[in-house]
């Protein structure tokens, strides 16, 4: 019984760490633009698929992973310049539709560049399972958790210690005031997309050895990441991490003890319950509408 718990908690946390990375991407773009980027899941896919390709070219795994992250970041920066920047004065709904267009475009492109098959990346440090408290853990799970933790640490250093990070935070609080203080909010939006793509791709690369990757694997991951960001409170970084982990844990335990067929439903039932009782998310600010 006890070992079962450890098993489900471990698999839940592994999935939760990935959701947290995707959710962070949603929050960063939301803070810079006020819009939900529905192409966030596609960055996860681009990361995973490019790593598979670079590896197939004969590059060593660490180099392939690094190049995949850079490639996804490049895609994110390009997307912002071509599709988002020209429409940055449009309403939020228009921006959302544009990001949906981007996600369709990237998915269609992925079908051409790669194919419609499912690909796997080899585990970073072998497949020999680790035995812990009677549960078996894949070494890749450790990589996922460590990678996500490192990313969160790097982000908190970036937002807390660097000038540009602080400028990005200032933009999220009040874009006009930030502009008056000399912050170039257009650059902030541009960098936000790059950063969000980088985080998404990191999630994609870390999870590709476990859950595999395909041209359409970004859809569900994107939705779960969105749900995680919402659960924690949109725009809150701590909330994104917490939301991701809570969602992953609930899913892991639910799939283990209730029904694995309804694993994907659990996340959405939880988010609905939370929204109905805490409309601002777990850590979200209580906002008041001004007339």
């Amino acid at each position: 019984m006890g070992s079962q718990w450890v098993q489900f908690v471990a698999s839940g946390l592994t999935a939760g760490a990935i959701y947290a990375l995707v959710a962070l991407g949603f929050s960063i773009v939301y803070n810079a633009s006020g819009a939900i980027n529905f192409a966030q899941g596609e960055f996860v896919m681009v990361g995973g698929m490019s790593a598979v390709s670079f590896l197939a070219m004969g590059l060593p795994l660490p180099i392939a992973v690094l190049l995949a992250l850079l490639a996804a970041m490049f895609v994110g920066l390009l997307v912002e310049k071509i599709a988002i920047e020209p429409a940055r004065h449009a309403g939020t709904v228009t921006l959302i539709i544009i990001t949906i267009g981007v996600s369709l475009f990237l998915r269609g492109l992925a079908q051409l560049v790669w194919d419609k098959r499912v690909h796997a990346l080899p585990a970073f440090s072998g497949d020999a399972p680790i035995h812990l408290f009677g549960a078996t853990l894949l070494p890749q799970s450790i990589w996922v958790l460590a990678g996500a933790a490192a990313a969160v640490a790097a982000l908190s250093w970036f937002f807390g210690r660097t000038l540009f990070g602080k400028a990005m935070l200032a933009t999220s609080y009040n874009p006009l005031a930030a502009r008056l203080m000399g912050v170039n909010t257009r650059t902030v939006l541009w960098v936000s997309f790059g950063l969000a793509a980088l985080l998404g791709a990191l999630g994609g690369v870390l999870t590709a050895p476990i859950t595999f990757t395909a041209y359409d694997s970004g859809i569900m991951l994107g939705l779960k990441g969105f749900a995680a960001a919402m659960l924690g409170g949109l725009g809150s970084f701590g909330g994104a991490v917490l939301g991701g982990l809570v969602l992953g844990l609930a899913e892991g335990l639910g799939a283990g003890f209730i029904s694995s067929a309804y694993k994907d439903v659990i996340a959405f039932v939880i988010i609905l319950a939370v929204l109905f009782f805490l409309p601002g998310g777990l850590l979200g600010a209580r906002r008041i509408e001004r007339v």
Partner: protein
Amino acid sequence: MAHAALSVSEPTAPGSRRWMQPRTGGLALLAGVIVLLPLVMRNNYFYEIAILVALNAIVCVGLNLLIGYAGQISLGHAGFFALGGYGSALLAGTAGWPVWASLPFAVAAVGVLALLVGRPTLRLRGHYLAMATLGLGVIVSIVLSTEDKLTGGPDGLSVPPIVLFGWTVQGEHTWYAIVGAALVGTVWLALNLIESPAGRALRALHGSEVAAQTLGIDAARHKLRVFVISAVLAALAGALMAHYAGFITPAKASFMHSVELVIMVVFGGMASVFGAVVGAAVLTTLPQVLTVLKDYEMMVFGAVLIATMVFLPQGIVPSLQRLFALSRRR
């Protein structure tokens, strides 16, 4: 966005003739197009597409009332669409009801469901509302594909045809007449609703909910009513689609289908009933045309969507209306 919605859908300026108004002129134009279209439709394939366009347009006109007029987004309407289809299919097929009873019952049941889930959902705003409706849609979609004993699972369910007084509704021409009439009825209903005090209340809500409430508008009730209307229209179209195609799959409830419906509304132009019809027509036909591109289809569709929203952020019909109004003023 809010003020654009107001100006675009405002009744025509004083002095313009009555037949120019959308409620009379636009409706006559739509009916004319539907009646005359068979002159240029050469084979059943054209009819099939026209039927799909009309069914999508029915959903979009309803969804546009919710998104364009009341300003409440829904990313889960495919769920209502599929529930209407599955409901009528299961009652008529598995339970053996006659379709004249199963279809209205299924549609009404979806309306009651929308009433129940709408109450807590519509208290949410913006992205939170988007998330909640998305969640509802995803739940419906997963339940439909998992409960395979009842629904046939991911492979889908075959649906019996509509039989009225011993006469089986079949053939593209008959179906075209039915969905065409249903579309005209839907548009007429929507236009009347918009011009009624309830429609003005909705637009006030879109502008500012708090301001509307201080003017004595029961925001929650108005939002809930238009949510239920849009869900019922989606369910109606879903049920008609199921009986027409003779088949339904859980893909009809998918997130992508919900997104497609919202895209049609925004693409055609929010807060424009005819925009919703045009959006449905263009985006239903486009993939049919793009099938010649085979593997490039999804990519080109995405690119067309991005380009349209970048260059015509108000959607096709309102942007063209504005252009037309500008050129006349000169």
